[in-house]
């Protein structure tokens, strides 16, 4: 059975890096895995070390494929394959009318987008599909889209399709949700609020919370450097100790399942993804 992992998190916490790393970790253990970007494809492409991503999956390395969901492509597939809209004469007008629908009706754009990784799951050709999902602030509107649509359309293909997508997303045997956070006040508070919101409105619980950029412990007692003559080494130690203490507070609050270590210095995006993959095996379904 194909499993789906949705990766989300506050912007700038390393969501795309973690999505890429999960794909890499899964491929390393011999899975056939697809990583798909749902909104902004740039970050995922960079972390996978490819210049760009297409709507159709392309091979990144043995076992690992990647794709990006773009609106025109997704809308086209949604209409032709999923809703089986017949090829009609005034296609131009019809497409514009449907574009209008996607622009305006609540839930339609979201269903078209989040539907894509779900179809990939339905195909049963992958072991794992990893979706680099929309950031935390928009995640709920995507996950709630099937419900939103059901409230809007009384019957017909759109409604049935939405319900089927909703069932896959809500099935814990199929779908897991990974939230990425960094141990700062802003990120932790927002992540916990979003997780609460998802549980309240959709009864959906994150399968794993991943803490990213966690500083390694510095084996220096603050008292040991007190009174020493000031120098860059001491400044760096003080900064580290204070940041570590600050992080510890927010890590406790977050209660993450996995902690990924801070990577010091310059790393290319693919290097970052490789390194993070080492720590993510336990998050894989």
């Amino acid at each position, binding site marked *: 059975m194909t499993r789906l992992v949705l990766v989300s998190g506050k*912007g700038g916490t390393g969501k795309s890096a973690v999505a890429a790393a999960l794909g890499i970790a899964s491929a390393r253990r011999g899975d056939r895995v697809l990583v798909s970007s749902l909104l902004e494809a740039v970050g995922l492409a960079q972390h996978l070390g490819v210049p760009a991503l297409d709507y159709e999956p392309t091979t990144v390395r043995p076992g690992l494929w990647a794709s990006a969901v773009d609106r025109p492509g997704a809308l086209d597939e949604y209409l032709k394959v999923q*809703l089986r*809209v017949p090829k009609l004469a005034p296609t131009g007008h019809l497409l514009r*009318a449907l574009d209008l629908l996607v622009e305006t*009706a*609540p839930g339609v754009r979201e269903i078209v987008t989040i539907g894509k990784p779900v179809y990939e799951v339905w195909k049963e050709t992958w072991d794992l599909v990893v979706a680099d999902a929309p950031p935390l602030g928009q995640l709920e509107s995507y996950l709630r889209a099937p419900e939103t649509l059901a409230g809007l359309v009384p019957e*017909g293909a759109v409604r049935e399709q939405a319900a089927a997508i909703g069932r896959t997303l809500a099935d814990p045997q199929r779908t897991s949700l990974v939230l990425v956070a960094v141990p700062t006040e802003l*990120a932790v508070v927002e992540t916990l609020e979003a997780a609460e919101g998802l549980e309240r409105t959709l009864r959906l619980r994150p399968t794993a919370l991943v803490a990213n950029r966690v500083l390694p412990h510095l084996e*220096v007692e603050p008292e040991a450097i007190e009174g020493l003559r000031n*120098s860059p080494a001491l400044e760096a130690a003080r900064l580290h100790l204070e940041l570590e203490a600050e992080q510890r507070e927010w890590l406790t609050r977050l209660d993450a399942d996995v902690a990924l270590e801070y990577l010091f210095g310059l790393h290319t995006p693919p290097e970052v993804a490789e390194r993070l993959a080492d720590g993510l095996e336990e998050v894989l379904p």
Partner: protein
Amino acid sequence: MTRVLVVTGAGGVGKTTLSAALAKVAADAGCRALVLTVDPARRLADALGVGELGNEPTPVEGHPGLWAAMLDVTASWEAVIHHYAEPEVADRLLVNPFFRAIADRFPAAQSFAAAEEMARLVESGAFEVVVVDTPPSGGGLDFFLAPRRTGELVGGRLLRWLTGAHLPARRTLYRITARPVLRLADTVLGGPLLEEIAEFLLDLRTMYDGLRTRARTIERHLRRATILVVTTADPTPLREAFRFFEELPEVDVHPDVVVFNRVLPGTWIEAADRPLRGIPDPELRAALRHNLRRWAAEARRHELARRSVAERYGVPVAAVPWLPHPPATVDDLPALLEGATGLDGVFDGGGGTVPSRP
């Protein structure tokens, strides 16, 4: 004349704190200064006393000259509609099931409301300095693009297709060619969705003229403002910062300075290659040296990021040092700017002029 500083950039880079610090420094210099903020961290909100207050500027207790206002972004679309639509149309729009969707879908409305609030406060002439902390939508870009986009949404190409080339002043029947297509699409979709949407958009369209005029005024204010793009050396906010240079020329707005926040001292880089002196304990010495090397690598990364921005866009770059503890009180705010470089001219720059470097 009011000096406007727009502090923008990706979420999480410290814009809000920096905005408050700039306003506090201006107030301390004897100006009547307002910080217009969106979503401050709780401690800072409490410190500023804006936690429960609405859009109206309020003096910050114990800090003469400093005023703060928090923008209520949830009410923003309603405000826009009430302001620009005729009462009966507004009532119809606000209960329409598509309205919520548009409001959620188009977070630029928050930004439009924020930009309009800024314009209103600048036009009031009540402040010498207004520091605006931009809403997070679109990585801050929406604040600049929203006036135009809001107009485009309301008079957009889809509406033009529905109604023909003309902008109707009132509800009109949509174009004869559009209707059968909408019907056909609705049959496929299983509900009268598109016809309803068309009706809704036609209502929305009536606001077009008012919105467009206001959008132009707001854009004029933005062109006169000093624009600070805040970032850290991390790839995501940096990528967002680049977008201001790629996309703002569209509305003839140009960032004045890129502010790097959480900057590490350049002195660490060289020091990491020198032996550590004055630390007798070999274990402690080794630990400190190892730690300095890690952080020196970070400092080097920061330096490269600053240089790449300066070279790429020929823009002045400012640096604000990394404080391990973000300021939690208004009194702590000026300390943030004490070690900063490249920010001296921001209060007298603006509108394309280059702030002086220290």
